[in-house]
Structures are given as structure tokens and as C-alpha cells.
């Protein structure tokens, strides 16, 4: 076994895990709050990539676009929630699942209509274009920077949930939404706000990953599936579990995929299936599976 190959795959896995953490957190939060299975999360990630391009075309630099682009996606996501998800809140989960599935195709269709089906490359921002040497192997600096930023943002989200007053309300709603409403939490608006914030996180991940993974209309599909696997593994709605799930999925995929590329998704599904047979509510589940 080539140790350098393994090292590169492990590093790639950790980097991908950091991105997956950002997207999974939002997915998990939204599910925990409103039992909304948001299939459009991957499309919102893609929108982040395109929002980055749009802002950069206004001759803004990458870093400014990285902040502004995702902020453009937030009001759109809020509009989607109010128009399509909010009216279905009292219905079973399958309704929002189907609607968000449909929204995904609408978003991808719109992206293809406007920008075509091709791939757009985004240049690695200037100070981080080079490589660093890790254990004698060159590795792109930007990947490490992006992973670091992802982790920083994720940690901020964790801290917000754990220590802020809104975070406390979010945790109460995740435990028992009906009871939280009865003590005075406006659960519907809270879901709308969190949906918008989660979309912002996904869009940020899409924009941050653009110089690494490139931009195309369907770029969100893969990370959507991986995020779902991470969230299910972590126990639906359980944030710390989701974090471990994200790293687990990313490492399994990149290390396993490094040797048998075409099998990587299959390997992952088998691993997740086995894990769920022994822990039906996820590795860290709190019995959230309905």
C-alpha cells in the first residue's frame, strides 16, 4: 500500500468532511426543528456556487463574493420556505420531502437555463494558490484554509446553538415543538429563520468549495446524499452526532474511494446500513427516527 496515496486520501477526506459538516448541520437543524426533510439542500449549495460567480462578475474579489453570495441565497430560501414548506407544516413529513424534491429540479433547471450545463472553474484566491508540504507530500494550501474556515463557521454555529437565547429555543423546539410553542416560542417563524440560515450555510459551503470542486448545476447532488447519510448516522436532529457522522462519511468515501473509486458510494451505503442495523436511531441517536 502506498502510504503517500493513503495520506492524500485521508487529507482529502478531512477537507471534504469539513464541507460536509457545514451542509449536514443545516440539514440536521431543519429536520430537528420542523421534521422537514429538505431535499433542496443540495440545490441551495449549488446556488451558493453560482451566487459567488454572480457577485464576482460585478468585479468583486473572491473573499467579498464568498460573504455576499451566500447572503443572496438566504432571502430566496426564506421565500421558498414561506411559499412551499410553511403551508405543509401540519402534514406528514413526506409532503415537504416531495415538495423540496420538486424545488431541487426547479433550481437545477433554472441554473442550466441561465448558465448552461457546463462546468465553471473558479480560480483559487491569490494568497492560497500554492501548496504546502505535509510529510514530504505537496498539498494545496487552499484546501486546508477552506477546511479551517468550514470548521470555524461550524464551531460558531455550535456555540450559537449551545449558548444563545435563540439557540436555547431551537433546542427546546427540537425536543418537543408543540410544547415549545405552548410556552411562547413562535415555532413557525423560528423554522423559517433557521431554514434561511441553514440555506446560507449550504450556500457558503458551495461558494467556499468552488475553487476545489468547481461549479456546475448538479454539483449539490453528491453532497446532498452524503449529508443525509451523515445526519442519519449521527441521529436525526442530533448536532454533535452529525459532526461525527460527517467526518465518518467523508473518510469512508475518500479512503475507500481511493482504492475502488466506482464502489465508494456502495461501500458507504453498506457501512451505513450495517451501522444502522446495530444502532437504528443513528450512532448517537436520541430516537428521532419516526
Amino acid at each position, binding site marked *: 500500500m502506498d502510504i503517500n496515496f493513503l495520506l492524500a486520501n485521508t487529507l482529502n477526506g478531512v477537507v471534504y468532511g469539513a464541507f460536509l459538516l457545514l451542509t449536514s448541520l443545516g440539514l440536521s437543524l431543519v429536520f430537528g426543528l420542523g421534521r422537514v426533510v429538505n431535499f433542496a439542500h443540495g440545490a441551495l449549495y449549488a446556488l451558493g456556487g453560482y451566487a459567488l460567480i454572480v457577485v464576482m462578475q460585478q468585479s468583486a474579489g473572491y473573499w467579498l463574493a464568498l460573504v455576499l453570495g451566500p447572503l443572496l441565497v438566504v432571502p430566496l430560501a426564506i421565500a421558498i420556505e414561506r411559499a412551499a414548506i410553511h403551508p405543509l407544516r401540519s402534514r406528514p413529513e413526506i409532503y415537504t420531502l416531495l415538495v423540496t424534491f420538486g424545488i431541487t429540479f426547479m433550481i437545477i433547471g433554472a441554473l442550466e437555463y441561465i448558465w448552461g450545463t457546463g462546468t465553471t472553474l473558479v480560480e483559487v484566491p491569490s494568497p492560497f494558490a500554492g501548496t504546502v508540504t505535509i510529510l514530504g507530500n505537496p498539498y494545496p494550501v487552499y484546501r486546508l484554509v477552506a477546511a479551517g474556515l468550514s470548521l470555524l463557521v461550524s464551531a460558531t454555529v455550535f456555540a450559537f446553538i449551545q449558548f444563545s*437565547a435563540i439557540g*436555547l*429555543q431551537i*433546542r*427546546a423546539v*427540537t*425536543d*418537543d415543538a*408543540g*410544547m*415549545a*410553542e*405552548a*410556552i*411562547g*416560542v*413562535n*415555532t*413557525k417563524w423560528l423554522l423559517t429563520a433557521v431554514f434561511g440560515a441553514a440555506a446560507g450555510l449550504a450556500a457558503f459551503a458551495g461558494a467556499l468549495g468552488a475553487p476545489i470542486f468547481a461549479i456546475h448545476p448538479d454539483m449539490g447532488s453528491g453532497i446532498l446524499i452524503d449529508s443525509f447519510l451523515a445526519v442519519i448516522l449521527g441521529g436525526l436532529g442530533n448536532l454533535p452526532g452529525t459532526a461525527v457522522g460527517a467526518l465518518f462519511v467523508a473518510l469512508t468515501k475518500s479512503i475507500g474511494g481511493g482504492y475502488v473509486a466506482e464502489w465508494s458510494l456502495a461501500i458507504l451505503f453498506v457501512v451505513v446500513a450495517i451501522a444502522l442495523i446495530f444502532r437504528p436511531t443513528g450512532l448517537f441517536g*436520541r430516537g428521532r427516527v419516526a
Partner: protein
Amino acid sequence: MLTLTDVQAHYGSAHVLHGVSLEVQAGQIACLIGRNGVGKSTTLKTIMGVVSPSAGSIIFRGQRIDGLAPHLMAARGLAWVPEDRRVFASLTVEENIRVAAKAARRSGARRAADVLSFFPALVPKAKERAGSLSGGQQQMLAIARALASQPDLIMLDEPTEGLSPIIVETIRAGILDIRQRGASILLVEQNFKLALSVGDMFYVLSRGAVVFRGTRSELLAAPELIHEHLGVAKARQSRVSA
């Protein structure tokens, strides 16, 4: 304080409340009693807005509140302790109280320490997760959480069900303390003796309608009514656990 007039409610096509009328006066404990499944819990849920009334009116502190979302009821000073307690299991005891104190956005919200003074047994548990508490402690916490927003009216749904005599006595003392400190109470209680010992006004519910309203002495003067509508209560009193 609270007036229900001919309130009706459905679960889907099941007609559960057939016209409930009752009042809770300021500073009083009104008891809602009756056999299993007659609609006592549904009455409380309908007042709270958790179940939408299909007819009738609910007036709270001079304003109609029927049809409002539950979070608006909480903001107006209504609090509800459901029969299955429903504490936020992953939050600590102190967080359970803090979230309730803030969420209702009421000016007089209490600090956690003040709320815990109703149930001193909870003080050493303040940093523990609510899910790890015993049933009796969870019941105390559910009541404490309801008190956090300094409500004008608190609705308690069978707060002593399944609890040991010592805990029942603690909760009884807490109920009297709440009235003493100025809040009104609507109490659903299957423990007939306990209800008699704290209640100012009594309503007997049967198949979704009030069949008796009166004071303690008026209720005691109707033994056949007690036998017919509260027979189950006696059997239930002996069903006690930790």
C-alpha cells in the same frame, strides 16, 4: 379571568367537546373533574390553542383568544402543564425554566432561582438534564416551567397522577403556593380528595359537556353525582408509583 362559552372541539371527525362553558375567577382554583375520556385534557388544549375550537368563545382577561396560536396564548399570560409533563428532556432543569421565562416575552418573567423557590427539591438538580429526573421531579419541573413567565392563569392536567404520597403532598403545597402568590388555576384532577382540598369551584365534565358546576359544599351535597361521574377517580387514587 377566563370564560368559556359553549366551546366545541373535534379531532378530525370525532366530536369531543359538545359545548363546554366554565369560568375561572381571579385568584381561584377551579377544578375540572370527570371520568376518563370525557374531554378534560381536550378542554385545556383547546383553551391553550393546541386544539382549535370549532365553535364557542374563549375570553381571557377581557379579550377573545379562541383561534390564536399557542405562543400568543403564552404571551397573554396563559400557562399549561400537560398530563404527560413534556419537559424538554435534553435541556437542563435551569434551561427548561429559562427558555420558558424568555419565550413568552412577558414583562414580569421570573428568574430561575425565583421559580425554583416553589419547589426547593429541584434546586440541587438545576444543572442536570431534565430527562434524567424522576417522574415526580419532572412534574415539579413542568409546573415550575409554567410559572417562569409569571402567568395569570395556569392550567394543570392531572399533576399528581402516578406519584407517591410525599410528592403528591409537595405538589399540593405548590398549587396552594401558586394561588397564594396571585395566579389563578384551572386544575384537572382525578384525585378527588386532593381536588376537594384545594378547589374553590368545581366543574364536572361528562361526554364533552359540563353537567355540574358548584362549590365544594354543593358538590358534596350531590353524592349520586359524585358516584356516577367520579367513580373512576377512587380506583385511580390507589394506582401510585414513585
